[in-house]
């Protein structure tokens, strides 16, 4: 395959030189040009996915496969109580590390020493925040135009001065009347706008919006409703069920400058689950395909208009939404592709050209192994083959479980090895689906209709794996099995490394070429957040967040026992590693 160029541009070299000299650039230097070239700026980690190509890859190689065995803890930071752990993705800008912890806290620390520069604590509407399931964690921030941007669990967006932490603006974006949902995902800076999607796939209420707000003022520039936003969507929800339909876009998408498009994944429909069974096109709580839930949407970055879409899970009967994961943009043979993972364990490879509507599927392949909710996926069309519906009543050994074969955290793509590194999770559940009464439209109340119990795949215990494969064909180069499925994001580097933050607290570095374990450190508690690398004063650091207690991690105690049953769910840390 054609490998992605790792040659640094002149601008990137200049940035690197400045960083290596320990010179601090002004905060305002994070402008749109710099963000667009983030993939060529290895000294910094400027956005949730590292760069718009979403590779979660760094060109840094001070720490490499030869010397990683000497990696040591350089410093750590303990935020105040962080219920459900620290799930944030740190960002690094010119020697300063920024990250969030639970309940609306933002921290700015010296990247070399951990010394605190400033801290911000948002004053949240606790009753509203705690009225949703998606609380009190936060998964990250955006940095641009001299500001740090954060969404809150009570539906606001806040901009802070990145040098002082002082509030520049604080805007209510998603009102109670507007759907009573909130924000937990990291925003994305695009031009002079900040884009963020709401949570709430399991909450009744229109319309699962994705917003773009003005970076300077916080005023909403555009809003895209993932459900009920156009006639095509409304027509795909029988009996006007879009009014209680869930949706949202709770994780961070990306921007493709070539087409001026925002790519975003959307959440599952409500109710979760639907009792309609085989007759889902005409019967049940939400008859029809339920557009644009469990879909990829491609939006005009300037006005939010829908350019294209692909529904990865038509009438999602399993809670396998498309909000999870990354949009990796890559090129091979002169053709551009976008790779996107779905919670159901499928990797979809799209033509990056959004003039195809729906999107053109170039390939689709499973990375899950023990699935039985479908028999497979059509590689040419992306259509599901042999759906296993879940009508009202009991169903045993449904695989994967509601937690999915792929969770919300990201994989990594290393352009030097040409390999995609991705976690897969293998677990199942028994479920009883009931006819739930719909809550009031637009209420934001829970809309479930099932009870379940986690189980193991037939014949063996639940497990996880990290695989290395060609991202476009899915061909596996190597695979490493884990007793406990990892839940955190992965990081790959030019030093031929893949960092894997483990569920049981072990933080590993693997050889990106072979999967061989080269280093590990026991961080003492599970990981389900971000991992990045950056430089400060010319030295490479690797930063990872710890802490346990996400909704998915709750199943580890019943499935695996210790160490998960006694693992705290109300704290976490930021740990930073470096060579001596």
């Amino acid at each position, binding site marked *: 395959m054609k490998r992605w160029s790792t040659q640094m541009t002149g601008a990137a070299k200049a940035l690197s030189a400045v960083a290596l000299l320990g010179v601090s650039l002004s905060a305002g230097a994070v402008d749109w040009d710099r963000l667009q070239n983030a993939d060529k700026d290895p000294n910094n980690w400027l956005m949730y996915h590292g760069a718009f190509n979403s590779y979660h890859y760094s060109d840094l190689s001070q720490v490499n496969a030869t010397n990683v065995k000497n990696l040591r803890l350089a410093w750590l930071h303990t935020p105040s109580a962080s219920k459900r752990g620290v799930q944030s993705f740190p960002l690094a800008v010119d020697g300063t590390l920024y990250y969030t912890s639970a309940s609306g806290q933002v921290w700015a620390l010296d990247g070399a020493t951990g010394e605190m520069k400033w801290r911000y604590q948002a004053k949240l509407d606790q009753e509203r925040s705690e009225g949703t399931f998606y609380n009190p964690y936060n998964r990250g921030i955006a940095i641009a135009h001299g500001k740090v941007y954060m969404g809150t669990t009570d539906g606001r967006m806040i901009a802070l001065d990145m040098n002082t932490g002082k509030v520049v603006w604080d805007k209510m974006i998603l009102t109670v009347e507007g759907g009573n949902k909130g924000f937990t995902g990291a925003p994305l800076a695009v031009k002079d706008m900040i884009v963020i999607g709401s949570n709430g796939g399991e909450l009744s209420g229109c319309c699962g919006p994705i917003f773009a707000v003005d970076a300077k003022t916080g005023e909403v520039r555009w809003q895209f409703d993932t459900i009920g936003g156009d006639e095509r969507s409304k027509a795909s929800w029988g009996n006007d069920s879009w009014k209680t339909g869930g949706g949202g876009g709770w994780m961070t998408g990306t921007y493709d400058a070539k087409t001026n498009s925002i790519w975003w994944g959307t959440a599952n429909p409500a109710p979760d689950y639907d009792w309609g069974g085989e007759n889902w096109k005409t019967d049940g709580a939400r008859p029809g395909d339920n557009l644009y839930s469990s879909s990829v949407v491609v939006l005009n970055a300037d006005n939010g208009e829908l350019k294209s879409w692909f529904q990865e899970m038509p009438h999602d009967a399993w809670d396998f939404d498309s909000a999870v994961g990354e949009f990796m943009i890559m090129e091979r043979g002169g053709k551009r592709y976008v790779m996107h993972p779905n919670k159901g364990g499928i990797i979809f490879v799209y033509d990056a050209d959004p003039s195809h509507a729906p999107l053109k599927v170039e390939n689709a392949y499973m990375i899950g192994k023990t699935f039985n909710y479908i028999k497979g996926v059509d590689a040419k069309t992306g259509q599901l083959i042999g759906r296993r519906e879940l009508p009202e009543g009991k169903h045993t050994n449904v695989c994967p479980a509601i937690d999915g074969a792929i969770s919300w955290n990201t994989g990594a793509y290393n352009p030097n090895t040409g390999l995609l590194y991705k976690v897969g999770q293998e677990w199942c559940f028994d479920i009883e689906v009931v*006819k739930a009464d719909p809550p009031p439209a637009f209420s934001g109340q829970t809309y479930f209709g099932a009870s379940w119990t986690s189980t193991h795949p037939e014949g063996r215990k639940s497990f996880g794996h990290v695989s290395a494969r060609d991202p476009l064909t899915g061909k596996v180069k190597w695979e490493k099995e884990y007793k406990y499925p990892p839940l955190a994001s992965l990081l790959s580097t030019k030093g031929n490394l893949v960092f894997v933050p483990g569920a049981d607290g072990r933080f590993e570095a693997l050889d990106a070429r072979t999967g061989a374990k080269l280093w590990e450190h026991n961080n003492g508690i599970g990981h389900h957040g971000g991992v990045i690398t950056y430089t400060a004063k010319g030295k490479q650091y690797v930063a990872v967040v710890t802490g346990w207690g996400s909704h998915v991690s709750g199943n580890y105690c019943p499935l695996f026992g210790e160490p998960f049953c006694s693992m705290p769910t109300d704290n976490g840390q930021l740990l930073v590693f470096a060579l001596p």
Partner: protein
Amino acid sequence: MNTAAPMLRWCVAALAGAMLCAGPVRAADDSAPAAADAAKPKIDVRKLFAMNCSWCHDGYGMHAGKGPKLAGTSMTASQVYQRIAKGKSGAMPGYEKTLNPEQIEAFVEYIKGLKESDG
């Protein structure tokens, strides 16, 4: 919770896998009792559980999941009522705005009726 308040009689056949239901204690009057019972809606606790609790509490509360196993809880009935109504900061939303007192009482009766050995 006012433990004297519940006037509900429970069919705890749910523990054996059947539908759990509740009906009011029949009033001692001369009117047609069957018709009076029929007029009052029965609370289907398992359905309510599936709608409100299952995201965190597995197997109708008989197994640990995202939240703890409810069967065999050491909490008193009053504590269970308060937890459902008010929630637990950072862990569980309160339901006093979405469930009425009778529904919460029904959950209390159901949860306290679960035996740890059932799980």
